[in-house]
Every structure is written in C-alpha cells, then in structure tokens.
C-alpha cells in the first residue's frame, strides 16, 4: 500500500512549513503566509517590548 503524499505549504515570510495559508485558507496559495507573519506584516500584532514595562 502506498502512503498518500502530503505536500505542505511554506510561509513566504518565515519559510516555516504550514498546513494552509492563514490569509485565504486555499491550498496551493502562491503567496502562502502563516498567521504570525500575516499579523506582523499588517501590524495587527506587535512585538511586546518588555514584560516589566518600558
């Protein structure tokens, strides 16, 4: 029995393997991006400076 080959996308931002594009959730997205990179690119999430305040 042959095992089905699963191809994973790679995030265009960090090159990490992802199951599906976080933006369009479509397979084989040419601009696949992970949730974290999308948030950072659109400034929807920002890196926190210091836990103890700035």
């Amino acid at each position, binding site marked *: 029995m042959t095992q089905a080959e699963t191809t994973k996308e790679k995030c265009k931002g960090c090159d990490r393997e992802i199951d599906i*594009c*976080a*933006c*369009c*959730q*479509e397979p084989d*997205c*040419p*601009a696949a991006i992970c949730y974290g990179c*999308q948030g950072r*690119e*659109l*400034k*929807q*999430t*920002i890196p926190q400076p210091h836990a103890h*305040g*700035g």
Partner: protein
Amino acid sequence: MSPRAAWRLETLGFKEVFDYVDGKVDWMAAGLPTEGTNAQHPRAGDMARKDVPTCGLTETLGDVKARVEAKGWNAVVVVSDERVVLGLLRARELAMDAAQPIEKVMRPGPSTFRPYVSLHEMLHFMVDHKLENVPVTTSDGRLVGLLLQKDVVAEMEKRNDAG
C-alpha cells in the same frame, strides 16, 4: 498610551488624561479616531461596508441565499448574537445545497483584518490571495463590515487621480 506618557501629558498641563491599558493597537482596532500624520491615510474600517448581510449558524443556506441575493450580495458573514464573526459564505459556498444548515457549509474561522490596516496594504493582500472580500473586525472579533476589493481599487484610483 503608556502610563509614563500619560503622566508626562499631565505635567504639560493636560487635565483629562487616561491610561488606555489595552494599548494603541487595540484602540485603533476598535475603529476609534486617531490623530497625527498616519491618520490621513484611508483604512480598512473606513471602506468596509457596514450593511453586509449577516446570518446565524442555525439558518439554512436556502433561506440565507434568497435574502442575500435579493439585496445584490454574493457574500454573507456568519455571526453570533454578539456579532462575533464565526464564519463566511462567499459565492462558492452560496452555490451549495440549499437544504444544508449554515454551520455545515460556511468557511469557519475566516481570516479577519483590523479596521486600522491601510487600504494599500489590504489591496496588496487581497490581490496576492485572490480575495474579493474580507471581513473587518475589532480585536475581540466583532464585525465592523466587509471590505470589497473593488471598493479598495476604486478608492485608490480616486486618490491617484486627485494627485
């Protein structure tokens, strides 16, 4: 603003200064007004259509489709009683079996965007990912409206023509 900035403003003579604990990004994500140079740029929340049709999880696709198409839309946002976005139906889902409940046919947990994202950035994402429309929400997931790619293109062209 940060507590330090709030204290500084008080030393400059401002009388009613508040520390918005959740921060600037959360303030903008709620679609609240901002000032400064960046406030002039058009944003997703300004252009998102607030009259986008919505439906609940338990309705049937046939009922929703009839209601939506009568108003000339080809997209519906699935929301909770608190108007939190739970799913999305685009043309592809609206063409499915009319007897199915919305919960079975919707795209669950669609990618959502905050109202303060610039139209320029939104257009870039929508073109790259071939998205005709995207839901715009506050940071706690409540629907602001549906942003249509054609509206963004028209607005950008208008601004380019104006110089």
